[in-house]
């Protein structure tokens, strides 16, 4: 071999719409095989925690929503819990249910969004368009309930800002029926398609030991067989009453392998789980107040008096998000605000996932953890000291070629899994 180590860089600055923020990968490759990877995040760093310590807490709440537009309720939910802990503010039960409903709606839209991106990375644009078409339904419901498609501004310290009215219940139920009717079709397209299976089975494997050692969270950890879910392990809001169980590929009736395919299974089953949670919440939700301190000046005054620290955790679509806050009496702004987003915990799982994989698998493996800071527009190849710029299109073309090659091989053999297992069906019932 001419040179053992070639460097393959994927700097991300110019952005692909499907994979969002900038990050830079540097791959060491031998031929087509990846032997090492280095990750450099930080291009989208806006200094949000720093800005937060110069504003009053209600402004911080709006800022927290703009940490991420996809998890735009997860951060406020973690932050409000942290502040409510620190300041000793109660949240009425109805408000807790509303927070849970909107969180689960967000999980549905986020997982569908991810499934579309994954299909795109594999070269199945028809599937991208199908998933994004059906995703519009949950976006309509989010808009109906919260007034906005993205950035819902629902939680406020002590409750929520909007109630769900009786006229809205049937609309939400209609959405649940719509998705339940579609579930089989999506499962068919994603889980029983021979080419999708061939491109994702045993690709980007993360073993349970690695997931544990690297502190992976969310679907990334669960797809490796760890039954880990904040909603189950540290129940908050009304999640404790809802009997949430962390989902792993075993709930689908297959053995856990920790590959990209398993990550697809887990996310699809979680869409079904979220629908059950929403349905249950609509039934159980008591009438009553939606906030304990309705007047904003009174709320600000109470927050100004508060002294202490608090932690808020939430199972966001991508995994656990934690907010830490420290308040001092007499100060409107927090003294310390610390945010840990799920992708931060999941970044390092890329290292074992990429090991020994092909260059053509880079897009799907990178997307498989559902990074909230990623976009791969062009790659930067450094071969024998010569720079080669390769755009995202080239990388995607490689991925698509591989799908085509595989398709010609697999079309003869039928799909492996033929029906949703009964276990997954009754799991839905439990949740």
């Amino acid at each position, binding site marked *: 071999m001419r040179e053992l180590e070639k460097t393959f860089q994927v700097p991300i600055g110019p*952005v692909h719409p499907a994979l*969002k923020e900038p990050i830079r990968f540097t791959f060491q490759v031998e031929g087509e095989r990846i032997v090492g990877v280095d990750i450099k995040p930080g291009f989208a*760093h806006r*200094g949000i925690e720093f800005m937060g310590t110069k504003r009053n807490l209600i402004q911080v709440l709006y800022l927290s929503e*703009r940490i991420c537009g996809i998890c735009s309720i997860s951060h406020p939910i973690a932050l409000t819990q942290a502040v409510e802990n620190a300041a000793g503010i109660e949240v009425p039960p109805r408000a807790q249910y509303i927070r849970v409903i909107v969180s689960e709606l967000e999980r549905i839209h986020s997982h569908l969004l991810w499934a579309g991106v994954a299909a795109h990375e594999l070269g199945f644009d028809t599937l*991208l368009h199908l998933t994004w078409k059906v995703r519009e339904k949950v976006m309509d419901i989010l808009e109906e309930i919260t007034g906005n*498609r993205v950035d819902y501004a629902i939680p406020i310290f002590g409750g929520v800002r909007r109630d769900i009215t009786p006229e809205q219940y049937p609309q939400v139920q209609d959405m649940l029926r719509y998705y339940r009717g579609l579930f089989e079709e999506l499962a068919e397209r994603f889980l029983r398609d021979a080419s999708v299976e061939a491109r994702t089975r045993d690709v980007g494997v993360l073993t349970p030991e690695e997931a544990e050692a690297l502190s992976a969270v969310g679907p990334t950890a669960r797809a490796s067989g760890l039954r880990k879910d904040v909603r189950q392990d540290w129940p908050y809001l009304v999640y404790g009453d809802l009997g949430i169980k962390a989902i792993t590929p075993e709930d689908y009736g297959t053995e856990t392998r920790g590959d990209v395919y398993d990550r697809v299974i887990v996310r699809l089953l979680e869409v079904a789980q979220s629908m059950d949670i929403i349905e249950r919440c609509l039934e159980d939700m008591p009438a009553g107040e939606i906030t304990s301190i309705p007047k904003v000046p009174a709320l600000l005054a109470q927050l100004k008096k508060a002294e202490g620290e608090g932690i808020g955790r939430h199972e966001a679509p991508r995994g656990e998000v934690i907010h830490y806050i420290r308040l001092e009496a007499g100060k409107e702004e927090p003294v310390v605000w610390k945010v840990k987003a799920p992708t931060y915990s999941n970044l390092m799982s890329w290292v074992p996932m990429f090991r020994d994989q092909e260059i053509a698998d880079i897009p799907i493996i990178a997307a498989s953890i559902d990074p909230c800071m990623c976009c791969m*527009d062009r790659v930067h190849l450094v071969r024998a000291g010569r720079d080669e710029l390769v755009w995202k*299109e080239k990388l995607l073309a490689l991925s698509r070629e591989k799908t085509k090659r595989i398709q010609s091989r697999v079309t003869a053999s039928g799909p492996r899994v033929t029906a949703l297992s009964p276990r997954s069906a009754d799991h839905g019932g439990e949740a």
Partner: protein
Amino acid sequence: MKLTSFKRALWVFHVSTGSCNGCDIEIVAALTPRYDVERFGIRLVGTPRHADVLLVTGTVTRPMAERLRRIYEQTPDPKAVVVVGGCGATSGVFYESYNVLGPVDEIVPVDVYVPGCPPRPEAIIDGVVKAVAKLEKLAAGEPV
């Protein structure tokens, strides 16, 4: 100039310079079947060298400023820049930070601002159509 039809297909390159992804997912929503801008010949391309329009989202972070400038220079003339979202237009909620260099127009010239946090897909499409109007004037040699 009133725009009754497009003279040619329009290629768009999307840059995120520090956005929260909110605007970015709405841009993808505009491309997918509910809004489907591809039926007008508007499509996203993978490199600024092929683009007629730059869609920029987000306030500009320190490391992205230089990259944005480079992408702008790589885009062939005539070109139009559309800023999608409040934080690209004014920095929005991102002010008083050590790592934010300000709204997009501090870094490159901007032709169209689409307000909203995030704007709806319809508004994004409207912004791109305004950019087409500018490009067609430029192509016809009219003053813009």
